[in-house]
């Protein structure tokens, strides 16, 4: 189930909140947790109930591994190894097996049949989350949790399929905390405000950029240079707004349940270097990779060469984590290399003008997102060629891919369409400019105060209504004759 769907907004979320708080109100905390677990499993299995077997077995095995660690302290290492083999094995099978087979076929000229395994939703997230739990249990950093608390922690639906990657020490104490088991109107209000803002980012902003990116990446050969530039920028904006919006919605929903989820994005496009970018982008993933891969490899304690090797390993893993394709590996490698260079020439880099640092960083991020989005490296090459081919006219098809038609309505209402219609692509370019301004200047979710004012109420209602009316539309018409 998606947060930005009618069933979630009109049925699932109200039911989950009312049921959870009502059961707690009658002193049935255990039932409330069971209810939350069942709702989370419904949320997870909504599109494909067969996924449930994957997540339930994953939870059961990881909990069993930790249980055995405590029961047989002398065999902790064996239990850890078993847990890691299971988790990484699951991830490998469901996410990477076909990729692995295709590479074996290519290298050894074989013809193994692809399994076409359906990737269970969010498997990368809940697997990493549980790896952290098992490793922390091995180091004695976990409490003796009940199976119910553990299952609620892993499946808690706001963070289940797209993060943030929440750790046990962040969420389980909150699940157990009795003071959080009653509805808090302050949290409900702020949660609703954050959820509405997140949904606006996703439905109105990210999906609008997504229409342009889909058009461009769907027919790379047809683009002029300016088209390619706008498409590249659109994808850069789409991925940020999409991903951070989902995290914001998760944080907002978590807040409604009185749970604080960690911040995942901190204005990453404000970064002046790639090192800074990774401190601001998908922060809970960076935290995981740092704690569970970079540090165990020795971090920066074993000399310069090992440090660079470790950074490259972390970023190659990060690339693969994002997707099973060489484009993701190359994307990760380029970011790893940029980190190393950034680190090696830190002193010289910091002497550069701030504006130059920002342009260099943002330009690098934009170009590497092309690799992330493209379906193959030959598409990447073609895209770069299109960027450099010349041609400064914006295709009418690109204008058609800009889907925010309500801007025309607003202009009609304000009687300014007679002026705006005279400028080709006015709405699209204004949208680009406003969102770009917001990305560089607006405060983040965690920086905002979320005051319970009338103005914020009006904004929240408007955002909710606008988004709800944008969840459904007239299907794109691809009949090319007209």
């Amino acid at each position, binding site marked *: 189930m998606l947060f930005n769907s*009618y069933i979630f907004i009109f049925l699932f979320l109200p039911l989950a909140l009312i049921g959870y708080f009502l059961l707690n109100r009658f002193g049935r905390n255990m039932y409330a947790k069971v209810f939350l677990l069942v709702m989370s499993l419904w949320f997870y299995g909504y599109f494909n109930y067969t996924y449930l077997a994957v997540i339930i077995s994953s939870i059961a095995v990881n909990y069993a591994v930790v249980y055995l660690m405590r029961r047989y302290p002398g065999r902790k290492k064996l239990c850890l190894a078993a847990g890691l083999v299971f988790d990484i094995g699951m991830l490998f099978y469901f996410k990477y097996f076909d990729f692995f087979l295709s590479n074996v076929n290519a290298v050894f000229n074989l013809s193994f049949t692809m399994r076409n395994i359906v990737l269970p939703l969010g498997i990368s997230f809940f697997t990493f989350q549980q790896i952290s739990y098992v490793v922390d249990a091995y180091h004695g950093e976990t409490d003796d949790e009940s199976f119910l608390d553990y299952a609620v922690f892993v499946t808690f639906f706001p963070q289940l399929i797209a993060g943030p990657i929440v750790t046990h020490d962040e969420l389980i104490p909150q699940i157990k905390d009795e003071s959080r088991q009653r509805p808090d109107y302050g949290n409900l*209000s702020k949660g609703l405000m954050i959820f509405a803002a997140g949904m606006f980012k996703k439905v109105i902003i990210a999906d609008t950029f997504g229409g342009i990116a889909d058009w461009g990446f769907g027919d790379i050969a047809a683009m002029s240079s300016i088209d390619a530039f706008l498409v590249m920028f659109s994808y850069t904006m789409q991925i940020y707004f999409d991903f951070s919006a989902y995290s914001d919605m998760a944080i907002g929903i978590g807040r409604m349940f009185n749970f604080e989820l960690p911040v995942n994005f901190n204005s990453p496009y404000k970064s002046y270097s790639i090192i800074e970018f990774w401190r601001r982008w998908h922060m809970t993933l960076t935290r995981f990779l740092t704690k569970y891969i970079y540090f165990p490899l020795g971090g920066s304690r074993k000399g310069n060469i090992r440090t660079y090797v470790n950074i490259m390993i972390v970023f190659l893993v990060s690339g693969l984590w994002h997707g099973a394709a060489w484009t993701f590996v190359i994307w990760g490698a380029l970011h790893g290399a940029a980190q190393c260079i950034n680190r090696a020439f830190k002193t010289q880099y910091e002497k550069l003008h701030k504006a130059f640092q920002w342009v260099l960083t943002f330009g690098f991020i934009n170009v590497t997102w092309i690799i992330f989005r493209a379906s193959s490296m030959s598409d990447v090459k073609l895209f770069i060629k299109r960027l450099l081919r010349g041609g400064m006219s914006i295709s009418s098809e690109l204008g058609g891919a800009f889907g925010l038609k309500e801007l025309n*309505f607003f202009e009609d209402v304000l009687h300014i369409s007679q002026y705006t219609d005279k400028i080709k692509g006015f709405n699209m370019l204004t949208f680009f400019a406003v969102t770009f301004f917001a990305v560089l200047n607006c405060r983040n979710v965690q920086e905002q105060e979320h005051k319970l004012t009338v103005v914020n109420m009006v904004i929240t209602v408007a955002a909710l209504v606008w988004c709800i009316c944008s*969840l459904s539309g007239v299907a794109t*018409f691809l*009949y090319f004759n007209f």
Partner: protein
Amino acid sequence: MKSKKWFLTTLGITMAVLVAMAAVMVYIDPYFHYHGPVEGRPYALYGGGAYEKYYNDGIGKHFEYDAMITGSSVTENFRASQVESLWQCKAVKTCFAGGTLREVDEHVKRSLAANDGVKMIIRGIDENKLLSDKDVMPSAPPTYLYDNNPLNDVNYIFNKDTWLTPLRRDIQFMRDGRSSTDFDQYSNWTIKATFSKEKTLAQYPRPDRQAETAYTQEIHDRIQANIDQNIVATIRDNPDITFYYFFTPSSICQWDEWNRQGVLKIQLEAERMMIESLLPYSNVKIYGFSDRFDMITDLDNYMDKEHFSDEINDRIIDWIHQDAGRLTKDNYIQYINAISQFYTSYDYEGIFNE
């Protein structure tokens, strides 16, 4: 403001706005999902192929009519008024640009199930669609409008596109006191089109010559299944309704394309199969105009390989009314032989050399 008051007020206002929107949508009902036209209240049938599949179901279910004109984009330029004057009936036109046989047939079935008064259906059958799989549907049909599940109506009621285009257009019509869109205008694209040989050839990317595709049992079965499911079944199940079905006459460029793709003979076989499948039913009249070679080879009648001018649409209705071009047990073999002879021996190079 106190948090409880803020939360409940925000939620209350949001719900009030949504309920008010739902009331307006159900009252105006631009797609006629809940009710037909209301006396004294004009409606706009917003043009553009994308919207037809949203309007057509409501028109088919809730309008009062006894004749329906349907088919793909080449039927969009028919004039319901011509049908009404010739047959003395009340006609609606519900076409599906790019519509597959299944999409159009399911629409006919739903309309007939909801409307007892229908006496005749005029439907164009695109020859090239006969070869498709029987279950092919266009992407993302608005099934929430087609079913009777009130829960999924949220997709209609809270739909930005519906609010900003059809519903807004309805309100403008009411405000300006305009007359409702009629079924001559609805979905008619003549005004946007240019019909000429030059345009047609410019729109026709001639394919490379390919080896002839063998006519296998699998192809035969696929065509027959398509005809049985998406054409014959509705005719068989509605013996009291007269079905006027015709092959939409594509230009010589279309025949050239089939010829170069090596499927010309399969195409002719598909036409024969369809005729033979329909002839046993007395409530269907089937027409073919591919033997009007002057019309087919005159590319000034077309805007691309398959879309013909509104003048041809008018002629087709006249021909059907006069029973000209009707295929019967006595003449269909002669018809198939004539078009086979013509299109298999035609000098296609001449199209481009003149």
